[in-house]
């Protein structure tokens, strides 16, 4: 396990360097000069040349590309992502203020989705090709088809029309006021969780169906075990591995879901931060956030691989 772990951890270093390089290159091909943007002028050219050169120097844009990349990377290593062009505050400071909301949303949505997905996935597989199966499949394929921002809009429409409710603007932490926090988070969690659950339900169903064809399941049936025991004790245990992986890889969905859901519900989280930064062309923020999201994604995938290896010894000895 130790060698496997070291190997896997070392392997993500070149990936992360590549990710950093890609982010850096993407942000540098932005048409238009960032310095011009900061000085408030557009391409009309009403800006003093000396002032512009000073701004270039201040941002380090006059240095060679490779050196700029090095400087940025060094900053990343020290958790220094520069300053937001829009608010003038350090990116890290802005981020820390928004992280609790997004984390809460992500964790709750994952829990909700798993709690929904596993029972329904098992039910669909155990009753394959009956109306129960068809209904669950249609609802879960629907969950993949319905854009989560539209689910959010519909929920808001219903709440506004039926209860005259408007989404609260300020985030209340659960330890400050649990009830206010619940009211604020329940609908976004449902919105993100439904889509996530749809993916996981389908995966649970198909892996369980695959496992149910195995010989040892036939043996379990032949022994005369109850259906409940065969499905839950014997089959589900072995079907869970791919599902665990999926919950991790679909983390990407979750982040995409956060971006749109926070926008719909006007929640001031990390996802909204990305959208705002993109809209304001706040390039240090976009650069930092895209990099951090990719970093999270890589680390989550690593953790999933390690869990997988932990559960399945065949993998770590390969």
């Amino acid at each position, binding site marked *: 396990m130790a060698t496997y772990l070291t190997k896997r951890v070392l392997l993500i270093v*070149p*990936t*992360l360097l*590549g*990710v950093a*390089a*890609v*982010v850096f290159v*993407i*942000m540098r*091909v*932005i*048409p238009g000069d960032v310095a011009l943007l900061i000085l408030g002028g557009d391409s009309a050219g009403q800006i003093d040349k000396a002032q512009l050169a000073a701004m270039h120097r201040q941002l380090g844009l006059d240095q060679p590309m490779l050196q700029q990349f090095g400087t940025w990377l060094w900053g990343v290593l020290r958790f220094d992502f520069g300053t937001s062009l829009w608010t003038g505050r350090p990116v890290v400071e802005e981020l820390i203020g928004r992280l609790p909301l997004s984390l809460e949303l992500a964790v709750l949505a994952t829990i909700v989705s798993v709690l929904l997905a596993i029972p329904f996935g098992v039910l669909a597989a155990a009753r394959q090709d009956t109306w129960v199966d*068809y209904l669950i*499949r*249609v609802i879960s*394929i*629907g969950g*993949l*088809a*319905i*854009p989560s*921002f*539209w689910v959010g*809009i*519909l929920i*808001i*429409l219903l709440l*506004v*029309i039926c209860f005259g409710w408007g989404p609260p603007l300020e985030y209340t932490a659960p330890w400050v006021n649990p009830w206010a926090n619940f009211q604020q988070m329940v609908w976004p969690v449902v919105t993100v969780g439904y889509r996530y659950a749809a993916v996981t339900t389908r995966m649970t169903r198909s892996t369980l169906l695959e496992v149910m*064809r195995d010989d040892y399941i036939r043996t379990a049936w032949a022994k005369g075990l109850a259906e409940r025991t065969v499905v839950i004790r014997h089959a589900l245990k072995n079907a869970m591995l791919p599902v665990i992986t999926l919950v991790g890889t679909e*983390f*990407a*969905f979750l*982040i*995409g879901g956060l*971006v*749109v859901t926070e*926008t*719909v519900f006007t929640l001031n989280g990390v996802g909204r931060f*990305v*959208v705002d930064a*993109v*809209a304001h*062309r706040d390039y240090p923020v*976009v650069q930092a956030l*895209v990099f951090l*999201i*990719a970093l999270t*994604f*890589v680390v989550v995938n690593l953790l999933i691989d390690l869990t997988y290896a932990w559960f399945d010894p065949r993998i770590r000895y390969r």
Partner: protein
Amino acid sequence: MSIQFPLEQTAVAVREETRLSFGEEVLKFARTKPLGAGGALIILAMIFVAIFAKTLAPYDPYWGDYAAQFVRPGAEHWFGTDEFGRDILSRIMYGARIALFVGFVASFAGCTLGALLGVISAYAGGKVDLLLERLMDILLAFPLLILALAIASILGPAVHNVVIAIAIPIIPRAARVVRAAALSVKENPYVEAASSLGASWHRVILQHILPNVMAPYMIMLTAQLGSAILTEAALSYLGLGAAEPTPSWGLMLSGSASSYAEKAPWIALFPGIAISLGVFGFNLFGDSLRDILDPKLRRKG
């Protein structure tokens, strides 16, 4: 699942299988995969509406009639009108053009480029393979919507930029799937035979490998179609897709749609149904296609 058929009988069955005409093939698909056939119907309807939008649409999708703002759905305007007095049904019909255009072009471009890279990677092996694989790993480290968002933010809001922004994240996903398939195809004796007969590398790739990775390619293509349409809607909703007054479904839901919740909920209702129905159709069809084309599932029967 191994039922032994007498040899002649199997041969007859195989011959009959290959003799199916296109029409019979379609009927067989509809019978064995009712959900997939339903999906195909939705797709065909969507294509029909997109092609004949000009004749079918009751109003000009761009023309705002300020005397007819927020008209309720009724005989005049089936789906009502928006805050500019534009007919929502007409805008949805024209929106099908954008959704299909972006969906088809982006997933075709992304999957084809990815498939080519995947096949090259698998065939060349060695350093080329290692390099391409690492590059794809790096691109895969970005969640699809985030990468599309970053690319769209650089290129600016326009329909052709959205196509590029959606196609790029598809490339590594297609490359990975097709590479895996090509690796196993490469091991077949007929590929070795072709190589030892002196066939050039591009002949081997074009004649022997590519035709045999068409199944995963097609699966990928249909799977990405629905997700491309969904990503387009999300980008437009976030203001990074098509710009006003283009009738894009995502754009129709953005901004004003939820602020007129009490006054005109239909503005937010119908475009969402259109997106969901379209993507639903592509997903249903893609699912059934995968069941048919995936040899792993087919063998299990």
